[in-house]
């Protein structure tokens, strides 16, 4: 296990593509891992206290990581535990393994992820499981669970996998969705705009677009794009 603690409070964002494989490298290699601090290229050791316990494929991020972006980007195995908040793009392109966030998550959580699991004990912001601008598909597999609330644009262009939000969410849920499942236990705003396929399950109140047809157990649409997506009440 590798334990990282910020050495000081970051003024600008840190771009650090930290994955569990890092824990398997030697301490020196880890300390020399290149990251960006604003426009400056730095080593991990310059920004963080690095401690290593055993060789397990696990990262423990202890402290405020809310300015640290791209943690767990593209990871395919192992585990990351974040004791505090985490910055944007956490778990983007993730293929496997697990990320547990004990605090809050920022935007673009699990963007374009293909597999694995992300658990957020606090809240998350916007664009969870989305496609990066211009790309055809968002989340394609895996699972994201958020115990608190989430923001707007959840699961845009989502093609597979599951996003579950225990609290409330904002507007534009599952826009252009092509597959997979979004479950919101609380309330949310507009859902399913231009959705082609997939399922959105909502526990609380939500705004229904006029382009959805009533079906046996909920609504089907978006008929504007000839979609067969489902919105269900739970």
């Amino acid at each position, binding site marked *: 296990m590798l334990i990282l603690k910020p050495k000081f409070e970051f003024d600008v964002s840190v771009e650090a593509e930290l994955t569990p494989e890092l824990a398997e490298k030697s301490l020196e290699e880890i300390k020399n891992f290149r990251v960006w601090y604003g426009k400056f290229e730095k080593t991990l050791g310059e920004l963080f206290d690095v401690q290593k316990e055993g060789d397990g494929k696990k990262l423990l991020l202890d402290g405020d990581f809310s300015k640290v972006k791209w943690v767990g980007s593209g990871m395919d195995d192992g585990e990351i535990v974040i004791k505090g908040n985490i910055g944007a793009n956490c778990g983007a392109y993730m293929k496997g393994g697990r990320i547990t966030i004990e605090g809050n998550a920022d935007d673009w959580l699990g963007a374009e992820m293909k597999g694995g699991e992300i658990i957020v004990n606090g809240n998350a912001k916007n664009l969870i499981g989305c496609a*990066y*601008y*211009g*790309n055809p598909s968002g989340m394609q597999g895996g699972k994201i669970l958020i115990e608190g609330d989430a923001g707007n644009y959840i699961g845009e262009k989502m093609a597979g996998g599951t996003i579950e939000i225990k609290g409330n969410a904002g507007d534009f849920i599952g826009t252009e969705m092509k597959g997979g499942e979004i479950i919101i236990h609380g309330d949310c705003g507009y859902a399913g705009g231009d959705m082609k396929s997939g399922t959105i399950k909502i526990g609380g109140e939500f705004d229904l677009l006029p382009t959805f047809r009533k079906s046996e157990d909920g609504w089907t649409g978006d008929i504007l794009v000839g979609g067969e997506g489902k919105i269900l009440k739970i």
Partner: protein
Amino acid sequence: MLWIKNGIVIDPKNKVDGEKMDVFIKDGKIVDESEVNKEECKVIDANNKLVVAGGVEMHAHIAGSKINVGRTMRPEEMRIVRHTANKLRVSLGRVLLTSPAIGYEYAKIGYTTAVEAASPPIGSPHTHEELDAIPIVDKAMLPVFGNWHFVFKYVAEKDREKLKAFIAWAIERTKGYGVKVVNPGGVEAWMYGGNVKNLEDEVPNWGVTPKEIITELVKSNEELDLPHSVHLHCNNLGNPGNYQTTIETMKLVSGLANKKRQTLHVTHVQFNAYAGSSWRDVASGAEEIAKVVNSMDNVTIDMGQAIFGHATAMTGDAPFQFTLHKLTGSRWVNKDSEIEGGAGIVPIVYLPKNPVHALQWAIGLELGLLVDSDKVVLTTDYPNGGPFTEYPYVMAMLMSRKMREKELERVSPYVQKATSLPAIEVEKTLYDVIQMTRSLPARVMGMENKGHLGIGADADVAIYSINPDDVDPAAQYELINSEFRKPVYTIKGGEIVVKDGAVVAESWGRTFWVDARKKVSLESIDEDLNSFFSSYYTIQRKNYGIQEEWLRNPVRVEVN
């Protein structure tokens, strides 16, 4: 002063085929040995290396509103960083490159000249600003005429003198190089939701046909004796069965002759060479087109080769872009340019297993192989058919049947029955592909100092680590494909800009434009211009166009 020593030169314009010789450069020109002081020369040892002229790109979309809107609508293209800022400009792009990247990437494959093939006239200030932002290569741009209301008017009135005056005026105002025509009449029809299918269809409200527009523009262009012929994107592009329209169009110029060049250049013919009646039975019409081109001595074409992978369709052919958007479900933007034309942009990915994409790929190669090497230019219609950075792949494919057989294994079997590519035995030589990428495009464009290494030519030279005496391109296609991607040297205007495949210096090329005003009476169209500008344009006539001094490095080519 440069002395390129002991290189093996291939220079088709001067009929040099693999001769060991020295090339001397002074003040940006190729000069005779007697003009240089050898002791002061920087010597480049080109022993056992191929020495050729810098490549000439005669049809690509590299500047102007189309590519810029393409960049805006495709943020995903901008995530590939090719160069971070240090000595050189930062350059980005996967296929749709930023302006600095375009200059560097051309230089990195040994190309030193590039022509923007379709600029909306009203957007020409923007086009030139972008061209000025492209480093290294020499440039020129072709404004589009085929749907301009002035052209319709003068064609309808059968007033060729005024049409000629208008062409000369427009080319000077836009600082353009020649007459580009895109789907003549079709883009105008599109503004009413339609298109023209045949050469005899009437353009709504004007009572003229594509046939008349093309014929009149070609004749005007010939009477003006511009350096480049009419540069035509045919009607009916991208539709099954269109090869017949293409052939009919080419036959419109039979009987016309020009000693220096062709009288019609038909561009990206791959997109205009489909047989069949629908996408279900679409097939290749390349053989028929090749027969016609080979039988005519006043028509040239370029390939418009499709490359598997990402591309972005962008043309002044607005109705076709809408069709493509409907066909693929991909994003789409259309742009209108007042009374001058229109354009559209649609992202596309060519997939080897997709029967239609594989067919397009095969048709491009058929054209490249079946048409004589002095009539077909190698292009991908960048970024429509794919990136120009893949030219070495196309060169290798043209030279090696073995490579084609290998590639055919990974593409849709549909090409086996719908094209003749698997049966074609032609293997072009190094001389042929150098002709198709250097001397021929320079001749097609009427650029006398480009594309060759004769005395007086611009000192644009590419040196590759290929020994023509030793190499068998048919068997060593991998070597051809890899070496043409990384010239040992690219020399632009006598300056070394690329060494061992990496850009080492940034220079700024020139922008050529054509001035034919002396041959016409501009007064004859003065009233019409005033009336059109006051009635239909969003800007005033005095604000229209660009001054020569606004360009970074202009070269006026006067037609007398």
